């Protein structure tokens, strides 16, 4: 006699014929079954959802009883080994008898140490990259080397204008006579196109330091000429006075005064 019975409401009635009945909720009683007598029954030919549902062990219990063959119930899955994660676990966590919180400081500190070292290296790399890009915008070393010049003022006689090269531009240094100083100081500011007093343009009234580039179109003015006894631009006829201020002609602004300082008889421009 072979009977396929669904567990559930009929299960108690089949207890007599089934020596072991387990239903998932109760403990499975182990029945030693000789391995060579195990019979793996293939799935029935399933063509509909209903027949598939009946064939798969998805609900209830389906004991198969036979008077001749031992029956088996394979719900407990004791043959499936629990995966071994030892290789993936920290050394402190390997022993199941040791509490995890006892080693939490070591494990956390190690993780944070690695993260901290990584961020440190990242911060250093970011800082170097930014520094490199920013410093690439600053002046090159050869430009910086030419950025300042020293002029010995003792070599320039009174009333003379001398030209130097400073940062690729002509630099006029004029040793002014007392008459010139007096003249420039007497000029009323209202008559000027770009009003600047002589004191604003010179640190020491004896010395005029200006960049010799005409503010009109960039020609180099000629010293000691023009209507105002200062500079005259031959290109379009701009007249500058002995303080480098525009007095006549197309130029809109006074000649530029570079930053300069005096160190005894030395003039340092730049």
């Amino acid at each position, binding site marked *: 006699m072979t009977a396929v019975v669904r567990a559930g409401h009929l299960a108690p009635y089949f207890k007599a014929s089934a020596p072991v009945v387990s239903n998932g909720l109760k403990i499975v009683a182990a029945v030693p079954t000789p391995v060579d007598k195990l019979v793996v029954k293939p799935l029935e030919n399933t063509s509909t959802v209903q027949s598939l549902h009946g064939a798969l062990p998805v609900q209830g219990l389906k004991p198969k009883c036979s008077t001749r063959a031992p029956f088996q119930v394979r719900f407990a899955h004791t043959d499936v080994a629990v995966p071994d994660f030892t290789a993936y676990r920290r050394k402190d966590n390997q022993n199941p008898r040791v509490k995890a919180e006892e080693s939490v400081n*070591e494990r*956390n*500190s190690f993780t944070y140490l690695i993260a901290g070292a990584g961020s440190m*290296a990242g*911060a250093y790399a970011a800082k170097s990259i930014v520094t490199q890009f920013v410093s690439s915008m600053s002046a090159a070393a050869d430009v910086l080397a030419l950025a300042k010049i020293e002029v010995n003022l003792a070599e320039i006689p009174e009333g003379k204008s001398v030209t130097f090269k400073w940062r690729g531009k002509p630099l006029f240094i004029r040793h002014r006579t007392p008459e010139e100083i007096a003249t420039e100081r007497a000029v009323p500011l209202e008559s000027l196109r770009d009003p600047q007093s002589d004191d604003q343009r010179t640190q020491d009234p004896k010395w005029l330091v200006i960049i010799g580039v005409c503010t009109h179109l960039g020609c180099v003015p000629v010293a000691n000429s023009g209507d105002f006894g200062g500079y005259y631009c031959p290109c379009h006829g701009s007249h500058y006075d002995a303080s480098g201020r525009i007095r006549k002609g197309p130029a809109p602004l006074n000649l530029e005064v570079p930053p300069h300082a005096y160190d005894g008889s030395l003039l340092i421009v730049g």
Partner: protein
Amino acid sequence: MSVWATLNRTVFKRTSTFALAVASGTFFFERTFEVASQSIFERINKGKLWNDIKHKYE
């Protein structure tokens, strides 16, 4: 053992102290790293640098 515990409790657990530790650590790391790489460079290029031939010209 307790060093890790102190480190974890005082520095790593709070984000502010962790960030501070990273920032101050970067300062020392930068100095060490640059001195070390500079000395390696100078050892590899020994004899070719200005400091090695300076005495001939000064």
